[in-house]
């Protein structure tokens, strides 16, 4: 019963809100209250129409933004996993690199995004770099915490069972760290789309943010909403897939 409610309730709530918006927009109440032209306040049905009628354009731009997000996440995760592993194996490296990692993470993306556009142009490359830049830190820090959370007694036990440093890492430390890794990955996945949009804002020749900026200037508000709905769907999908991956991998909790 609770399991059913947990699925039905949020869907019912969202449907109710969309319905409310439909009524408020199609009757013109919102436009009237804000003293606007009705076409500036599209109803959900009109947004749906905008998605369908502009599906090719939207898909082309979605594909660009999606690639920025996914490649950025992959690159950031690779750097995060590599850094955390290296820092786990070498104390010297950790002492040397960790402060730098914190400093790098503190560099405002708002500042470097336009510089990267100047250096590397309007393509997808600089966006991938910026997303990776933003997501590697939560992954590095969480994974490193996880690797260090290992039970010292379990390490002793492994040593008397003839485990090499690598065997202990692989069979005890990595599984211990996996739930921590996924905590970091969830943060990464949640911020990646925002960062990708911001990177496009700093200068781009394609992508959903570029489309939104253009459409907003041309008062194509229905299509702005359409792009927003797609972005929400991407965000929900990424978080959902990460949670699913965690459930499939971390089966012992």
């Amino acid at each position, binding site marked *: 019963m609770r399991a059913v409610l947990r699925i039905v309730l949020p869907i019912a709530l969202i449907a109710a809100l969309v319905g409310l918006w439909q009524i408020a927009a199609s009757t013109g109440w919102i436009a009237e209250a804000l003293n606007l032209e009705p076409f500036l306040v599209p109803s959900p049905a009109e947004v749906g129409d905008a998605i369908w009628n502009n599906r090719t354009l939207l898909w082309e731009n979605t594909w660009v933004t999606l690639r920025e997000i996914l490649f950025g996440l992959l690159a950031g995760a690779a750097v995060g996993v590599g850094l955390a592993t290296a820092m786990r194996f070498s104390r010297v490296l950790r002492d040397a690199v960790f402060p730098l990692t914190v400093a790098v993470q503190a560099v405002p993306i708002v500042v470097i995004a336009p510089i990267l556009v100047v250096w590397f142009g309007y393509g997808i490359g600089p966006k991938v770099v910026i997303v990776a830049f933003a997501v590697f830190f939560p992954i590095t820090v969480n994974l490193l915490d996880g690797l260090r959370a290992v039970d010292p007694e*379990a390490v*002793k036990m*492994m040593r008397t069972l003839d*485990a*090499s440093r690598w065997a202990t890492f692989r*069979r005890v430390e990595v*599984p211990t760290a996996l739930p921590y890794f996924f905590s970091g990955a969830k943060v990464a996945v949640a911020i990646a789309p925002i960062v990708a949009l911001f990177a496009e804002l700093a200068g781009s020749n394609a992508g959903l943010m570029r489309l939104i900026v253009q459409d907003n200037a041309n008062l194509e508000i229905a299509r702005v909403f359409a792009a927003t709905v797609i972005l929400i769907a991407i965000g929900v999908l990424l978080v959902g897939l990460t949670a699913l991956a965690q459930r499939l991998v971390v089966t012992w909790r």
Partner: protein
Amino acid sequence: MRKDNSVSVAARGLSHSYGELRSLQRIDLAAADGEVVALVGPSGCGKSTLLEIVCGLREPSTGEVEAGGAAGATGRLAHCAYMPQRDLLLPWFSALDNAALALRNRGAGKAEARREAGALFERFGLAGFEGARPQELSGGMRQRVAFLRTLVAGKPVLALDEPFASLDAISRAEMQGWLAGALRADSRTVLLVSHDIEEALYLADRVVVLSARPGRIVTELSAPHPRAEDRDHAVTDPAFVTVREHALVSLREGAR
């Protein structure tokens, strides 16, 4: 103490301290091949530290120690398998993969390691639970898997640190009988840390009573019926009860 091949574990004048805190004081201890020696003493008397030193997980501050003829830490580590107080079964591995850990660590393939460890499951009363995760097993079964994991390592010396402390009284008595049977069938040199005198006197050939910190040896007692088949009979036998009284008196003296 003479040095010969039948001596499996030997400590001479062994002391240890954690910084200022002295934990063990001039311990002389020997266990012959196939002998079970129990260490009993008040909490914090350094029993576990002594086990870790013998196993090569720590070095003594002064004194000598050897296990299986090896004096260096790496050599001792190669001859001892350590079963910690908590079972420390890895929750991400099945019971079978936990039992096979030592084989995998030495580079055996998964199938080969599973075959070798799995062959012992029947004898340990674990048949049918190979694929179970540790969290699905009862306390007694978990301890058996942990012991199996220690045994599969194939080391001549087993160091058991209060293996049944986490179990309730009934399962503990059951597991003691079970361990006695396992050791009758597969004789090893065992150092057993316990805070339960009855358990120590039943399972061990010899019981070494340690004092409160810093731990030093108060007395050594021979057990009348080590690992007897009928446990209930053995532990109520007058000879057993007399030795147990002795041990209790020594333990009280040492605790002061």
